[in-house]
């Protein structure tokens, strides 16, 4: 085990419900407002998940079937931080002059496509949720995130990072945080947080592979290729094929991702290392998909999707819980004793995750 910042206290970033309750009653609207919105959103999501998992078979037919077309809107923050910003492109409108807006729009389309065509999922909530993204967030902002409702992309500072819409897998990664939120809702801390991150990397990479028509052998298995500014020594931000090798740079440092449990990093930072230890389940997926060969979204991706959305994956799941469910899903979908269930078991074994 590697320890980063061992002397640091480890805090959980997830505000416990009783604290939220207290904040929601605070006289200061700056405190009570966000807490109330969080509570409201959490209870809506919980109810929705319960309905979709428990009543999946018994659900009444929807009043109106969700469309097979996405409903995209791109907003421009014009380097400010107010969200969502000014509406600059709506669904069906022709491309404009801003390449960032056009990339965001087509990246949302590519993501919608994979989920619909490979997994028959209508948008991130499975019910045609409109897809909103804001670009040009803040000045020289070196990040992209999912705020619970929409995607937000920075332009990068031009020295370390360039425009975060450059990589379609980054767009797919952010949207997949939405899918996870509406399904397993993996807690964004520690091992469940690293699984949450890994889901976003796996489907982000599959979106890129699907849009390029690549097989597992042809894919680069990189996350964020095209995000590093010229002069930075590195290929991308993460490598699912070889975690820990994506970059090694004077300014950025070295890619800290482990590929097996032997090198699991214990830290309180980065929500308990969610972007670090995701290397382990990422690598397991890569090993599984390349062992099967062909298009990774068809079998390997299907099994991961089955587990993410199947209702059995707990919010606080550990790697071993997830691994066990993938073996079960492989058996259910492709038969016991088949290549798929053997290959997925072997992949977890190779990264040192025990299946109980």
């Amino acid at each position, binding site marked *: 085990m590697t320890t980063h910042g061992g002397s640091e206290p480890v805090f959980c970033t997830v505000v416990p419900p009783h604290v939220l309750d207290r904040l929601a009653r605070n006289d200061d609207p700056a405190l009570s407002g966000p807490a109330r919105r969080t509570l409201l959103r959490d209870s809506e999501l919980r109810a929705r998940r319960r309905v979709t998992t428990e009543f999946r078979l018994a659900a009444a037919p929807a009043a109106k079937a969700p469309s097979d077309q996405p409903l995209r809107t791109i907003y421009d923050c014009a380097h400010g931080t107010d969200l969502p910003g000014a509406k600059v492109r709506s669904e069906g409108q022709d491309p404009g002059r801003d390449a960032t807006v056009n990339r965001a729009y087509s990246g949302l389309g590519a993501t919608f496509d994979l989920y619909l065509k490979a997994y028959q999922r209508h948008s991130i909530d499975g019910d045609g949720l409109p897809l909103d993204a804001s670009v040009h967030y803040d000045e020289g902002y070196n990040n992209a*995130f999912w705020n619970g409702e929409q995607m937000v992309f920075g332009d990068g500072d031009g020295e370390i990072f360039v425009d975060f819409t450059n990589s379609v897998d980054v767009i797919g990664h952010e949207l997949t945080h939405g899918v996870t939120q509406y399904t397993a809702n993996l807690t964004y801390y520690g091992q469940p947080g690293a699984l949450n991150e890994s889901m976003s990397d796996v489907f982000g990479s599959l979106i890129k592979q699907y849009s390029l028509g690549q097989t597992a052998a042809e894919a680069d298995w990189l996350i964020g290729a095209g995000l590093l500014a010229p002069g930075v020594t590195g290929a991308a931000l993460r490598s699912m094929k070889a975690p820990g090798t994506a970059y090694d740079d004077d300014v950025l440092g070295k890619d800290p991702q482990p590929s097996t449990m032997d090198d699991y990093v214990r830290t309180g930072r*980065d929500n308990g290392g969610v972007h670090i230890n995701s290397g382990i389940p990422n690598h397991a997926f890569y090993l599984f998909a390349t062992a099967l060969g062909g298009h990774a979204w068809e079998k390997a991706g299907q099994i991961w999707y089955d587990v993410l959305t199947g209702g059995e994956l707990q919010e606080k799941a550990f790697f071993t819980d997830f691994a066990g469910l993938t073996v079960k899903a492989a058996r259910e979908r492709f038969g016991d004793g088949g290549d798929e269930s053997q290959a997925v078991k072997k992949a977890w074994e190779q990264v040192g995750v025990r299946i109980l």
Partner: protein
Amino acid sequence: MRIQVRRTGGFAGIERRAEVDTAGRPDADEWHALAERAVAGGRGARPSGVPDGFSYEITVDGERVYAADPRLTAEQRTLISRVLKEGA
């Protein structure tokens, strides 16, 4: 006054930290006012962030507060970007 900022998380998961010591700086008063307001708007524990959002620790003369994107106050945002840009 020693003002330290540590940023963790983010899509890349790459940590950045920087520090400004205002002693002897001609703009020290401006820094002090900004730092005090940024700390006043901070939290005593790490707030729950959003996926891939940056989280921040702001430490002013040993007093540490926490904040996370996208819910920063204007003063926190300004202080963080100035320290990360101008600090060592």
